[in-house]
Each structure stands twice: as structure tokens, then as C-alpha cells.
């Protein structure tokens, strides 16, 4: 089965007054249709940049320096601007961070949804568009009358689900959700995640969930990709990630999780995430790594495949590759 999404050597830099910051460094990733991938990492590790690069929405001073993003056999990087505009939402949809605050306060929810449909399928009749929007609202568990409401009449969780409804209007093959629940409390968060889960199963799309909450990942995704300083350090199934993380950074992330059995034990990750302007030589994690060796300071570890389906970039496992 060919993966629905193939990212090859994707590289993004931001040109700042202080020099060039490499936010994404030769990232490779495959995702099958119907799969849910979690993308985790600290702030500034390049998670959101990766989402924006897939949508070709990187703005200056940022620039996509190279690589390809193939969705269903079409390389998005080769499309013209107009073709790319048509691909957004129909091939690949993006639910940005704080999406619920992006609804227009002076337009009814329905008008905003119809806008999106009309931009892609201009010859559809008005009734058909309305019907499609209403169905989309229903599939995220909202009542049909939300269609004629304004954003201020809805709660945070409902607004977030409106954004999901807009995201699935044209049944895209890939949906990227960037911290869809970061401002919501636990009960609403659960409702929103369960909505995404159900919608994803209905239309069989691939979902990339960006976030730093490992608990949410355990509940939701099939595969986890860990990012550090613009590179992927480990991609594993969620079970492997939680029971046997391989990369030392992934191990530290898993260890820092609070749970009910180790009351009062806090284990943070020592040190700070590096600035993208001054990425350490060799493996970017070596200054914070307990198991750092000499080679880690000089050589960037290549991403190798282990145990069939795990991708890890670490010198510790060099002889097993």
C-alpha cells in the first residue's frame, strides 16, 4: 500500500537578523490512509513549522528550502499557487492552534462554511452547499441550528468542533490538527478528541495530531513521532513508544509523565531546548543526554530502521542497524 502522505527531505529555514535558523532539517515521514500520527516535541522544536510547510503556508522570513510533500500521488511543492489554493481543504486540511478564535465574529457560522465550499466547488447549488454544511455540523455532534448562529453564542468546545466541521467539509485525505485542545478543559478536550476520532473513522482520512501532551497521544494516536530541534528523533507505534522508547529524549519524555502510581515524584528533563540559531553540533540532544558519547558531539546520527517499523536517530543503536 502506498502511503497517502509522503514527506521527503523537507527543509525549512527562517532568515532572521541573527542568522539562519533551520526549523526543519531533512525530515522524512510516511503516513498511511486512515492512520493517526502524533507529532510531539517541546516548544520551538519545529512541530508547527512542519504543519505550515505541508500546507505551503510558510511566510517570509521563512522559506521552504527543499524537499517534497506528496499527498495521494501529487507533489504539493510542484503545484502552482492557484492549484495549491484549491488543494488546501480538499486534499489537505489544517486546523491551526487556537482555531476557535479564528471564526469571524460578525459572520454567521453557516456563511463562513459556505464561503469555504464555494471557493472550491463554485458550481454547486446553494441548497446543496447548505445541506453539505449541515451534515458536516451534524457529524461533529452539533445541532443544525448552529448553522445560523454567531461564534459568541457557542462555547469553546463547540467552536473548536465548528472548526473541525469546516476541516472535513471537502473530505480531505490528510487532516493536520495543531494542538486542537490546548485551551480547553479536560471534559471538553475529551469530547473534541472523540469527535475527531469518529470523523476520522467515517471518512477514512489520515490525521496528524500536533501537541506536547503525551497522555492525549496515548488515548488517540496509532504512531508517535518525536521531534527535537527540527529533526525527527524517533517514530514508533504508540505501544512501543510507551513501553520501550529507544531514543534517550523519548525516554526522558515518557519518564517525565505524571501518573497516579508515583505520587510526589517529578522528573523533568534537565537543561533547555536549544535555540534553532545555535543548534549543537552532532546530535542536537547531546548536551542534555545522559548517555552521550564522543561521537554524539561530532556526527549527526542518521535515521535508521529497527525491529521492522521503528525509526530512530541515535548512535546508541548503531551496531543494531
Amino acid at each position, binding site marked *: 500500500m502506498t502511503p497517502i502522505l509522503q514527506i521527503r527531505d523537507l527543509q525549512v529555514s527562517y532568515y532572521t537578523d541573527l542568522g539562519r535558523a533551520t526549523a526543519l532539517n531533512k525530515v522524512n515521514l510516511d503516513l498511511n490512509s486512515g492512520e493517526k500520527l502524533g507529532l510531539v516535541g517541546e516548544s520551538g522544536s519545529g512541530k508547527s513549522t512542519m504543519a505550515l510547510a505541508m500546507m505551503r503556508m510558510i511566510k517570509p522570513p521563512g522559506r521552504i528550502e527543499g524537499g517534497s510533500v506528496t499527498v495521494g500521488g501529487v507533489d504539493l511543492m510542484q503545484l502552482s499557487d492557484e492549484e495549491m489554493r484549491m488543494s488546501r481543504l480538499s486534499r489537505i486540511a489544517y486546523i491551526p492552534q487556537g482555531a476557535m478564535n479564528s471564526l469571524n465574529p460578525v459572520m454567521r457560522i453557516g456563511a463562513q462554511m459556505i464561503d469555504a465550499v464555494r471557493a472550491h466547488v463554485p458550481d454547486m447549488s446553494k441548497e446543496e452547499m447548505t445541506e453539505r454544511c449541515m451534515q458536516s455540523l451534524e457529524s461533529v455532534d452539533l445541532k443544525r441550528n448552529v448553522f445560523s448562529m454567531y461564534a459568541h453564542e457557542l462555547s469553546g468546545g463547540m467552536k473548536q468542533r465548528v472548526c473541525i466541521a469546516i476541516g472535513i467539509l471537502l473530505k480531505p485525505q490528510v487532516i493536520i490538527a495543531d494542538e486542537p485542545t490546548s485551551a480547553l478543559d479536560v471534559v471538553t478536550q475529551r469530547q473534541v478528541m472523540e469527535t475527531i476520532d469518529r470523523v476520522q473513522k467515517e471518512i477514512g482520512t489520515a490525521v496528524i495530531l500536533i501537541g506536547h501532551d503525551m497522555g492525549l497521544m*496515548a488515548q488517540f494516536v496509532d504512531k508517535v513521532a518525536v521531534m527535537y530541534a527540527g529533526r525527527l528523533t524517533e517514530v514508533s507505534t*504508540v505501544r512501543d513508544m*510507551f513501553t520501550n522508547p529507544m531514543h534517550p529524549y523519548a525516554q526522558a519524555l515518557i519518564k517525565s509523565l505524571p501518573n497516579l502510581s508515583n505520587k510526589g515524584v517529578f522528573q523533568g528533563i534537565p537543561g533547555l531546548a536549544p535555540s534553532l540559531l545555535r543548534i549543537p553540533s552532532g546530535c542536537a540532544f547531546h548536551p542534555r543526554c545522559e548517555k552521550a558519547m564522543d561521537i554524539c558531539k561530532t556526527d549527526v546520527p542518521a535515521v535508521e530502521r529497527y525491529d521492522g517499523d521503528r525509526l530512530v536517530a541515535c548512535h546508541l543503536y548503531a551496531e543494531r542497524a
Partner: protein
Amino acid sequence: MANLLEFRNVTKTYTRGFFSEAGTTALADFSMVLKEEDPTILTVAGESGSGKTTLAMLLLGFIDPTQGQILYKGEDIRNLRGDARMTFRREVQAVFQDPFAVFNPFYTVDHLLTVPIEKFKLAKSKAEARSKMDEALSAVGLRPEDILGRFPHQLSGGQRQRINVARALLLKPKVLVADEPVSMVDASLRANILESLRGLHRDHGVSIVYITHDLTTAYHVANSIVVLYKGGVMEAGDIDSVIQKPEHPYTQLLIDSIPWPDLDRRWGTDGLSVKESELSDKGGNGCRFAPRCPYAKDECLTASPPLHRVKETQVASCILHQQHPVLPSANLTDVLPV
């Protein structure tokens, strides 16, 4: 025993305009005592709109209660004047949710630390002020030479939040109100900030009111917990009992909704259905949670249940537990261990 801080049947109602009689009750008949000699960490938990932040604002004296009194060392905080007010302002400190919003981007971060030193005349000389700042920053695990003289945008969210904790520490407070201090910080930095807070409590005898919707972190730092829903106390008690054996359906829902980082504990395995809170849910006379409660009966809609003492250190406001004795809401502190 001297009461450091006391809420006496406090109610806060927000009204809309002059003529509309219907208001929103953000906190209803809430009583609690923090004792001077036994500093504690008390968690106030609940979802958005449950009255958590109103409680913080009342405690800090930013808003006045509609009914009831808030006493600080036996004195109504509305009547504090002059020196007494300055003492209250110094001894009751806050750490807020957003570490990005509390800094003025035009000043270096030193400003946040020097202003309280000047204001409360904590130091006689520049050198003394500097050593106090160094001491406070070191206490929260920051290196002063990395921090002082920098601008807010040069620091990470976790560093900024720890500076806020350091600022609170500088003033040697008696009570610290922490309103969602870690919700906007990376998971990997949360541990450091929570550890700083616990250090304040352990080493400096500060009572902490930890306001959050995240019951996992609450479980790790707090001794006792009060669960609020729409301004009313749903459940309260010592943290181990409440988290491990919640008795109120609302607390059960909250705990069941935590995304546990555990593959064998998935959402929805215990079958408690999640219902959306409707904006139109009016409190009415009945139980506030009744419209969403899977066990709701007819009598839930007519009378608000009192607090039933299900255990020595646990109360739940639910008729499912009406065989247990009733605890008057003014005595809530009896079930909160320190």
C-alpha cells in the same frame, strides 16, 4: 488557633446591567479556613466557568463578595487600610496562568523583581536588593546571571513562570494563589515549576491555593482538594481519597476524562457518558450538575443536596450519599487535612 485566611459563607454574583434581576452565581456560599500554623496546599479544581478564578480574585481582594466575608488575620479584607493593607498585599501573592502576559516587554525582567523590593522597602541598599534577588532566583532553580538584565522575549515560558514564582518568594508571602500556573508551559518544564511551588510550601511554610483543571498535577502537589461546579462545592476532602475513589458523579467524570498516558486505561472504559454543558443550563433550585448527571432523579431537580460526609476526610454533595451525615457548608475545612 489563629486563622490566617477565612472565607465565611462567601457568595459572588455577577449581574448584568441594572434592571435584569437574573445574575450568574460564580461562587455560592463558600467557606474555608487556612490556618497560620499549618501551611497546606489546597487544590481548587473544576472546568471552565466553575468559579475557580472568581475564588482567586476574591482571595486577592480584586473583587468584593456579594455576600459573606473574607477575613485575613481576623480582619475583613475590605476594611484593611494603610499598613494593614500593605501587609495583606505583601503576604498574599499570586502566580497567574499566562507567563507571557505579566511581563512588560519594554523592561528587563529585573523590573518585575525590583519594583516589589522598592515598594515594600525590603532592602536598604542596592547590594542587599541584588542579593535578595539572587537568592529568590536560585531558590526556584534559575541561575541569576542567566536571567538578570535579559528582556522577557529572550526567556522561555518556563523560565518566565519561574521568575513569577521567584517574585512571590521574594516577598515572603503567607499565602500564594497559583491560578493554572503550568497550563501554558511545556510538559517537560511543568515538573520544575511544580517542584518550585512545593519547595515554597515545604521550606518557607507558604500556604498555596492551587487552582487548576488538571487533576494529575493537583494529585502530585496538593494535600486536599475542593471540586467546584458552577460555583458550588461538589466534592471535597483529602486528595488521595478524592482522586482514587471519587464519590460525586462530576468528579468521576473529571477523573475519567484525564488523558492518562497509559495504554491500558482508555477513555470511556467505565461507561460514564459525557454530556455537553448547555449555556442555557440554569442553576435553578436543584443540583447544579443534575442536567448532565447520568444518575439524576426527579428530586435532584428540585432541591440542592447538602454536603454528605462519606468519610472522615471526604464530603460529596449528592443524594446518592444521603445515608451519610450532613456537614454544614460552613465547616468545610473540617474535612480538609493539612
